[in-house]
């Protein structure tokens, strides 16, 4: 079976199928709607948190179980190196863009596929940003490649525990986050309803 070595037309077909599947699932999850995505930041709809955290936990458990059963060599799966400072700055910028624009890069393409005007403008800005970044990156390349560099640095290494224990912690945190998110949504919704009904009376 694995490793799969696809080339040429097969590779294109596989990529298209995966891309279509990913886009379809994002759309069905409601991620083609900027209002739903932006609601994350107003604590009224935490679907993004739940879907993303759910995806992380699912992928983590499947990968680690595949490793435990000897189906995947975890050592051969490339883990991107950690650049803490660059990551924090990049995350903040992405977050600001997310709140202002209502999309993140992938979801903007999903919304664009639905021919939404705001998504069209967001994608135009995205492309412009990519060009600007590409043209200016030599100016801050050294900082970008060294700021907070930790090499390949995973949670189990940081905590000094086994991969299994790290997975347990992440899963329990995720389940707690799901429960907390639902609670928060209900509370915020209730307060808003009270405020609206109070305003009317």
């Amino acid at each position, binding site marked *: 079976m694995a490793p799969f070595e696809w080339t040429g037309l097969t590779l294109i077909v596989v990529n298209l199928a995966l891309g279509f599947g990913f886009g379809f699932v994002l759309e069905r999850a409601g991620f083609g709607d900027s209002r739903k995505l932006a609601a994350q930041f107003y604590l009224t709809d935490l679907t993004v948190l739940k879907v993303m955290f759910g995806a992380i*936990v699912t992928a983590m458990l499947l990968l680690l179980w595949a490793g435990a059963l000897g189906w995947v060599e975890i050592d051969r799966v*490339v883990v991107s190196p950690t650049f803490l400072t660059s990551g924090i700055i990049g995350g903040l910028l992405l977050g600001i863009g997310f709140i202002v624009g209502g999309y993140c890069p992938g979801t903007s393409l999903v919304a664009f596929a639905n021919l939404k005007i705001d998504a069209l403008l967001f994608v135009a800005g995205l492309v412009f940003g990519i060009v600007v970044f590409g043209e200016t990156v030599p100016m801050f390349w050294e900082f970008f490649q060294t700021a907070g560099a930790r090499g390949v640095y995973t949670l189990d290494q940081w905590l000094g525990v086994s991969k*299994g224990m790290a997975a*347990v912690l*992440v899963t329990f945190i995720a389940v707690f986050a*799901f429960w907390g998110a639902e609670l928060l949504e209900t509370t915020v919704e209730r307060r808003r309803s009270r405020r609206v009904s109070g305003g009317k009376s």
Partner: protein
Amino acid sequence: MTPDRNLQEKGTWNWKRIGGLVAMVASLGLLIVPQPGIGAKVARLAPELDTLLADRTVQIDGAELLDLMHNNQVRLLLLDVRDEADFNVFHLLDAWNVTAEDLLGDKPDEVDPETIVVLMSNDEARAAELWRLARARGLVNSYILAGGINGWLEHYGEHFEPRPIAVADANGAAEPMRFTYPAAIGDRTETAWPDPHHLPPQDYEVKVKVVKPIGLEGGGCG
């Protein structure tokens, strides 16, 4: 919460509970079925590794290593697995003196997966032993210097000064160094990094093939 949402929530609540429970049980199961240890991994890979060793697919000629040492287009890591005393007497330029403990520790994680790693001992047996560990630790582009350091000195030593001196009695060591120098010279001789222009042309069978790791390009937000 609107009435519609209430109904929807009630319908999905059980599924959410079941999903959360399954995830928690699956994660706890990873404590019972841990990731394969290095021993289990070596044992699992044993048939494949034994075949590669028996076919001499991974034992590269000294001439091929020499070309790699002079090739600035590849990342090369030389791991000398001999005792420190032998290492001090002579070693190849930029070689690291490592032990099995080093290969079991964090060092392999720091090596770029596309780096060509060549292990060497006095002959081949010790290098082959640690090569298994290196492969099991994910260094998929690991090779062994055919003939080891003894073979290297035998082949290249005579071309450069100081010349290595053959040792008749190796004190019954398991894999002894069959050459020595008047003093521990380490890599302070051209034999440690011979200039191919100072050597007669050599033919060899090319065995090094760089295997790319399973890549997860990109990622991030959906």
